[in-house]
């Protein structure tokens, strides 16, 4: 049954205790610097993406992760680089936390051929399979059974990799969430379900979506162990995912994590935000995970204020470069519009349908690569 750890307690346990210099959770100073940088990177990447959207250089849907950076960064830092990651459409954070090239990410938002998906997917569908980042999925909840299926493939092939599957509180109202959790539990699969509870599903409040306010309760029907962590505190997320990953990797089956977080911006760029009051947003902004973790870094002598400011400058320069790169990149060649509808297009005039082995390998190989 779920052991619910309240943010406060978690925070207490992590920072407290053994002296200012020594770092909790077996973290090294370098890891902390990297995590800080990644959070800043996501923040600045999205500020620029929003700007480009206003200039109509980015189109369609743009869902910003601003305010939730600690969840993706903390979670992926606690996972192994070869663990598999799936997220929902609010996916810039997962991609950048996984180390995807910001240039290629920005170019994807710009719809260019140099984008991660050659402009086919756009903001909602960033993916970089060479990093076992399987992408952002835009049908709410649809990637929950998909994550369970990947976890089964790992278990079946006796791999050590676990799957991290990120989704929102709103997704828990969809039946597919339950079908996915049920299967993960039935077959004891190595998958960590990470529910980013940011209190809203687009314009719906948590109370309008769910009769229970703690999403971890929904894991009980599947006898799935769970943890609730403070999504505004990188260390709280890190600790929870560290435990979950260990649990999954040791063959104990799926794990459910609820990260209590908040999106500082609207659901998408079109959101008038009439459903929540400014005061609530202001209160949450005070919990901004970036300065909060920055303070931790300073307190623990990991970085000085100056060094943190330096990081921000470097990242900002990198982002300006990413925007420039995206803006100057070529559009996809119209003659390629039919590419990738099929991995093996069949020309009825053509050769027998027998499959050239080469064509099947990609998926399998890539999974191998992650050994």
């Amino acid at each position, binding site marked *: 049954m779920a052991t619910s750890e309240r943010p406060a307690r978690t925070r207490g346990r992590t920072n407290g205790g053994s002296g200012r210099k020594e770092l909790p959770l077996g973290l090294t100073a370098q890891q902390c610097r990297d995590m800080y940088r990644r959070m800043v990177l996501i923040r600045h990447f999205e500020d620029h993406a929003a700007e480009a959207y206003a200039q109509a250089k980015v189109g369609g849907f743009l869902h910003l992760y601003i305010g939730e950076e600690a969840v993706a960064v903390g979670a992926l830092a606690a996972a192994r680089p070869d663990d598999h990651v799936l997220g929902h459409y609010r996916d810039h954070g997962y991609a950048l936390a996984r180390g995807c090239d910001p240039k290629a990410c920005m170019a994807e938002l710009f719809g260019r051929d140099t984008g991660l998906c050659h402009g086919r997917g756009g903001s909602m569908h960033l993916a970089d399979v060479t990093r076992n980042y399987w992408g952002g999925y835009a049908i709410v909840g649809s990637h929950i059974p998909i994550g369970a299926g990947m976890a089964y493939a790992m278990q079946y092939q006796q791999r050590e990799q676990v799957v991290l599957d990120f989704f929102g509180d709103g997704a828990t109202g969809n039946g597919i969430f339950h079908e996915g959790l049920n299967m993960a539990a039935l077959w004891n699969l190595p998958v960590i379900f990470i529910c980013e509870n940011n209190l809203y599903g687009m*314009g*719906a409040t948590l109370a309008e979506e769910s009769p229970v306010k703690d999403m971890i309760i929904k894991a009980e029907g599947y006898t799935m162990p769970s943890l609730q962590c403070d999504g505004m505190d990188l260390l709280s997320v890190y600790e929870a995912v560290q435990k979950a990953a260990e649990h999954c990797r040791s063959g104990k089956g799926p794990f459910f994590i609820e990260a209590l977080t908040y999106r500082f911006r609207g659901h998408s760029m079109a959101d008038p935000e009439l459903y929540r009051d400014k005061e609530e947003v202001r209160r949450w902004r005070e919990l901004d995970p970036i300065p909060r973790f920055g303070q931790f870094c300073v307190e623990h002598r990991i970085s000085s204020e100056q060094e943190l400011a330096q990081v921000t400058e470097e990242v900002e320069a990198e982002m300006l470069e990413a925007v420039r790169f995206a803006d100057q990149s070529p559009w996809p060649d119209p003659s390629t519009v039919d590419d990738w509808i099929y991995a093996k297009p069949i020309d009825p005039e053509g050769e027998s349908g027998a499959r050239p082995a080469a064509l099947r390998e990609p998926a399998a190989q890539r999974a191998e690569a992650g050994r």
Partner: protein
Amino acid sequence: MAEMTYRDAVRGALREEMARDQRVILMGESITGYGGSYAVTKGLIEEFGPRRVMETPIAEAGIVGFAVGAAMGGLIPVAELMTVNFALLALDQIVNSAAKFHYMFGGQFSVPMVVRTVSGFGQLGPTHSQTFEGWFASVPGLKVVMPATPADAKGLLLAAMRDPDPVIFIEHSLLYSTRGEVADHEVGADEVPIGKARVAREGSDVTVLAYSRMLLQAMHAAEVLEREDGISCEVVDLRTLRPLDYPTMVRSVQRTHRLVVCGEDWRTGGFGASLLGEMQDRCFDDLDAPIQRVAMRDVPLPYSRELEKLLIPSSAQIVDAVRRLN
């Protein structure tokens, strides 16, 4: 008569019918505080309250199933599915529940409900740019409506809410801001009958069948063809995709002997493909040339602006199709 947008026309129909008939309720995702993803239901929660404007979880199948039950219980639910792409999650409830019960139980009860949803484009990417009207229109038991003008949006939605059968009402995101004359509110008078097509433009050389956004594209193409080629197009707005108004369509082809079928769904297996088949069957001897089609290329619509631009069915494509015939 008053001029208003397609969006206001839809909202107007909902408001008037809700005021007129207490049994009408709305349900859907982000239709209250948010005002609807396309702002169609904006203000209705304030006017009618949460009992009649229900904010739902993100559960398309559950929403439609719930609406079916509410209809069986005596209400007239109007369920909004945020976009037609998400309607795939509710197809079982639409096809095996809403469309079947009246028949399956030997006419013991009907399922008076409306599923409001929307198709459209705008760099929404492969999973959010689809349009499945052909699928809905193939199901016995469903009525399918796709208005092109504010007047039809209001009149047909009123008719849909007063119809005893389940009606799939598909709006178009690129039409919401278009404006047009709409009849003032007089019960009955403002209703546009389901099942009646409209000759939107008279012509003698070729018949162009269109609906929803493609109607506007067809009207524009007709002007271009008149001006540049001296070709006279008769444009028919289908308005209702099931049941289809064959008499109006056939009469037109009998005069023009040429036909172009326009739609936004995939060429292969899309609504236009089926319509083409039925028309060749009814007009084989009247046709002087193969029926031409304007449809979406068989590809998952990519996000990239430059690629999308090439693919979205347009008036230019209609012009080409008509020219192929002459």
